[in-house]
């Protein structure tokens, strides 16, 4: 890619001549810019990976619960009277048939007594004869993905069939989680954007300073009839390679930092967090980040140089 850019001359490198008409590579001012770019890229890597992790988290939480609901058929009726197992099972069967034939429903299963026992055993202990105490029945339902339907009407129908039935769609909990992760993700993207803007502004500032320092040399080139493009290409090329270098170091450091964080989290064994592994696109984005920043830098430099040159007679 770089080689291509070199050969086609879009970076101002022509005839294999690594020569600048301005004493660009001989001054210390570029160190500041390089350090700044290293820092900015480092932060960008962290912010970017933060947004990737949040995406993965959201995906994991929502894919487990979205389009899913459970229906509980309580062992008591609306007035609090204990129902017989037959009454409960009848109500369950009726509900099951209604739900199964509903157009928006993909699957429905009745939870086995053992599963329910496992769920509630922490509260009431293991040694219970289930046939002696009335147990609620629970149906787990998964809905079809792209079918819109009103859950309130759906629940109303359930209540007509069996007044003690209760629909739980996890919706409100999920909504909060999604709102939370979306906000975090937005913040991460915002931070990345701000970092990008700061980088552009500092490169423009650095180029402007450089043009003031080399004003005499620039004027000389201009007076000799150098095209604005000829002059711009030199600063462009210079900024491209120094920001590429800075951005590569920043990205590398950022990725190393991520690996350390990953190791630390792995040892904490936090079940709520998703795997820290990245998709191919995300890995590619880290590889391309320095190149992107370098191109951004070169473009900014070009823009700034041309603007300053236009002010010469």
């Amino acid at each position, binding site marked *: 890619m770089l080689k291509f850019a070199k050969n086609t001359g879009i970076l101002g490198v022509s005839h294999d001549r690594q020569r600048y008409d301005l004493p660009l590579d001989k001054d210390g001012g570029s160190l500041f810019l390089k350090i700044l770019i290293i820092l900015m890229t480092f932060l960008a890597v962290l912010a970017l990976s933060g947004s990737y992790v949040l995406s993965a988290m959201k995906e994991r939480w929502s894919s487990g619960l979205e389009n899913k609901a459970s229906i509980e058929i309580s062992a008591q009726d609306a007035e609090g009277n204990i129902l017989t197992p037959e009454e409960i099972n009848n109500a369950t069967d009726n509900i099951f048939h209604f739900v199964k034939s509903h157009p928006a429903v993909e699957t429905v299963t009745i939870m086995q007594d053992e599963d329910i026992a496992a769920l509630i055993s922490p509260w009431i202990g293991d040694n219970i004869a289930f046939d002696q105490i009335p147990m609620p029945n629970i149906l787990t339902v998964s809905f079809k993905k792209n079918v819109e339907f009103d859950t309130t009407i759906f629940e109303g129908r359930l209540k007509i069939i069996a007044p003690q039935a209760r629909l739980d769609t996890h919706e409100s909990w999920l909504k909060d989680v999604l709102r939370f992760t979306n906000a975090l993700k937005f913040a991460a993207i915002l931070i990345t954007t701000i970092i990008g803007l700061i980088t552009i502004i500092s490169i423009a500032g650095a180029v402007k300073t450089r043009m003031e320092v080399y004003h005499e040399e620039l004027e000389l*080139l201009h007076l000799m009839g150098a*095209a604005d493009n000829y002059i711009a290409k030199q600063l462009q090329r210079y900024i491209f390679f120094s920001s590429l270098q800075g951005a590569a170091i920043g990205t590398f450091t950022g990725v190393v930092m991520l690996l350390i964080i990953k190791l630390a989290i792995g040892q904490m064994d936090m079940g709520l967090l998703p795997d820290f592994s990245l998709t191919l696109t995300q890995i590619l984005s880290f590889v391309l980040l320095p190149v992107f920043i370098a191109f951004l830098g070169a473009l900014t430099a070009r823009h700034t140089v041309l603007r300053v040159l236009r002010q010469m007679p």
Partner: protein
Amino acid sequence: MGVTDMIKFEHVGLRYGVGPEVLSNVNFTLEPGSFHFLSGPSGAGKTSLMSLLYLGQRPTRGLMTMFDQDIGSMSREELKEIRQRIGVVFQDFRLLNHMSAFDNIALPLRINGTPEKEIKDNVIELMEWVGLGDHQHMLPNTMSGGQQQRIAVARAVITRPRLLLADEPTGNLDDEIGLRLMNLFDQLNRMGTTVLIASHNQPLMEKFKQHKRLILDKGHVELLTPKKSVKDKIRGAF
């Protein structure tokens, strides 16, 4: 390209900022292929006039025509092309100290896109001509004033410009090299280059008295041709 007026100034004035006019109501014409000295006392405005001619600044009033074109109405692109046709020896040389003597002289050729092979041959030949053949890799700020001046001259003529402007090009040179450079200018002039040399150097101008003189004094220009008896007038100007 048949240019009738290489340079034409009509009521040209120049002031720096809010200061007084350094040049006021300057009128003169230089035909293509002519050779002129520009003389006048120190501070008369020779360098300022030169800077108008190499398009380093714009006149604050009046009309300036170069290569038959009105400078005021030219686009950036056209100005760039005009600049490439002009060779300038600056009074303070303006060499680039981070690059070698060779690269300094090669710069105008690189700017106009000459192939590198051609650049090499031309620059080496010219460096030998000005007596700096074995100074190719030296940096200008490690060279003597006279050597720097020769690099400045070489850089100005390397493209065989249509117009050569030289501001005190023989100031730091002993007579022999001074004459050699004058012969270089003469040779260029014979090949069609219009030459204008700002100079204080009376003996030098005496030696080349076949050339016309523009005398600049108190912001005005007077053209003296060799046919007239100029000596007394010039004496008066110094």
